[in-house]
């Protein structure tokens, strides 16, 4: 269990001072994965470095299992840091050491006997599914395998907190999925509190139990994933959904953007809405998935019905929120949207994308 209390990081002094993290309050329980998302420059890496205290917070506390680490002197910090395992982007392995030797590094630093270390390393590599690559050098491993070695190294000292900064960024989707499911497996087996930092929104749905959105050093939204995804008013919830390119509703029909606004949306809502309105509903785009036992998603539905209030009410009856898409833009929907270089997170940009 880890909690950050009023965590603040200021770089520079006087007039040049930049507040990179501004009074963050975050709590991650054991067995929970919190995803921290945010655009580039939001302060995510700074947050990671403050959590494992590679950077000292300017003020505030980092409390791990009840002990505040932020005030410890450097030599005590080195010991305390063992409670936090860190997985780095692109693994940051020692290139001249084999996978096994890399995993052994923290044990070596701690002064564990070689025999003991060997047994522990074998167990860790087994856990991340890399026993057969123990004696390979990093250059002989794939990106996903290197990341697994990084995870095994992070777990070497039996931490209670696992911190990952962009650990899956740069991996292909398939590999990302396998690394993410490994993290979930480890979270269950070892009862870890996991802080998973990423700028990739689509990864969050697969990994996290809860999510926090960091923007310009502030946590602007935070909550359990299911709650975020079933709340129409959650900008983070909507940003986490895949962006769709709806088909053209056709002559006389209008496109409605539909989001889940309740945990109790019936699976056959489309038929029900269609029956309520007495006309066939055209499904122009949709993504529905199960997050922790609850259905969430969003869709674009084509309807002829002219009475907007009636349509909204029909959707609302089933826990959905429907918003009319402007018709003059509807034809544009058929052209595939080019994904932005950086996932957009701010409400305004997301909103703009929704209406595009």
């Amino acid at each position: 269990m880890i909690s950050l209390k009023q965590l603040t990081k200021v770089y520079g002094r006087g007039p040049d001072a930049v507040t990179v993290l501004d009074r963050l309050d975050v709590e991650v329980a054991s067995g929970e994965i919190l995803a921290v998302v945010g655009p580039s420059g939001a302060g995510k890496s700074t947050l990671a470095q403050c959590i494992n205290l590679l950077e000292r917070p300017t003020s505030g506390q980092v409390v791990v299992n009840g002990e505040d680490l932020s005030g410890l002197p450097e030599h005590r910090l080195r010991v305390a840091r063992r409670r936090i395992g860190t997985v780095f982007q692109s693994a940051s392995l020692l290139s001249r050491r084999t996978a096994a030797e890399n995993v052994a590094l923290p044990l070596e630093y701690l002064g564990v006997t070689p025999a003991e270390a060997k047994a522990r390393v074998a167990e860790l590599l087994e856990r991340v599914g890399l026993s057969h690559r123990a004696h390979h050098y990093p250059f002989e491993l794939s990106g996903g395998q290197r990341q697994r070695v990084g995870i095994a190294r992070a777990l070497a000292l039996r931490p209670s907190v696992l911190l990952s900064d962009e650990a899956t960024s740069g991996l292909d989707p398939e590999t990302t999925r396998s690394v993410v499911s490994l993290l979930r497996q480890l979270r269950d087996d070892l009862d870890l509190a996991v802080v998973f930092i990423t700028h990739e929104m689509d990864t969050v749905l697969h990994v996290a139990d809860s999510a926090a959105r960091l923007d310009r050093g502030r946590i602007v939204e935070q909550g359990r994933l299911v709650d975020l995804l079933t709340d129409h008013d959650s900008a983070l919830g909507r940003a986490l959904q895949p962006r769709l390119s709806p088909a053209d509703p056709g002559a006389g029909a209008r496109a409605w953007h539909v989001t889940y606004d309740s945990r109790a949306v019936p699976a056959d809502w489309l038929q029900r809405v269609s029956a309520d309105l007495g006309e066939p509903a055209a499904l122009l785009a949709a993504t529905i998935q199960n997050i922790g036992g609850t259905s969430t998603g969003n869709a674009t539905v084509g309807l002829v019905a002219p009475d907007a209030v009636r349509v909204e009410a029909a959707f609302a009856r089933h826990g959905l929120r429907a918003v009319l898409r402007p018709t003059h833009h509807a034809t544009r929907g058929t052209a595939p949207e080019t994904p932005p270089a950086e996932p957009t997170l701010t409400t305004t940009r997301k909103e703009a994308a929704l209406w595009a």
Partner: protein
Amino acid sequence: MGVTLPSAVIVRTLADTPIADLPALLVPALGETLAMVGIVMLVVVLAGTPTAVCLHNMAPGGLFENKAVYGVLSWIVNIGRSLPFLVLMAAIVPFTRFVTGTNIGIAAAVVPMSLAGIPFFARLVENCLREVPRSVTQAARASGGSPLQIIRSAQLGEAFPAILGGLTINTIAMIEYSAIAGTIGAGGIGYVAVTYGYQRFDQTVMIATVVLLIALVTAVQLLGDGLVRATTPHLRRR
């Protein structure tokens, strides 16, 4: 041998050394060069490596950032790097005499060569350390390493092949310096080349020393390249 002839006395009529006599002249000279360079490189590695580690880690973002000490250390190293070897050698004669009690011979050459070699090597190694990604040092810190452990396993460990490359460059530079030191009677191949080849116009010795120096430098380079390959996993033949 061992007596420097004043150049005014040199006459062109001196005959070239017969080829058969070359080994007797060059083998001891090669031994002297190797001894000089060997001693100097030992000193250079022992003093230059910690200097480089300090420079690297006192710089902003290092393990023990210290702007003031970094500034002073960097300034000292720069002074050592800025003097041409010949000038440095001449300038520190009093110091050399103080340390070794003499200002000619191998012992006397080792002092200026080391003083020139240490800052050179320090900069080479500092550069190698800078090439190690910062995230590797961060990962070592996150793994609970003490500064010494991090320096050893993450920084020097990762930079090791590059440092061997720097060591090769430095050794070759020291062979060159030893030849310059030869002109002040330090012995070695340089001394033979200057006294026989240059001052006595002995073509045979001149060519022989040139060939020997080329062979020596080539051997050092090949050895260095081999060591770099052997210590870099992806260059190693497996």
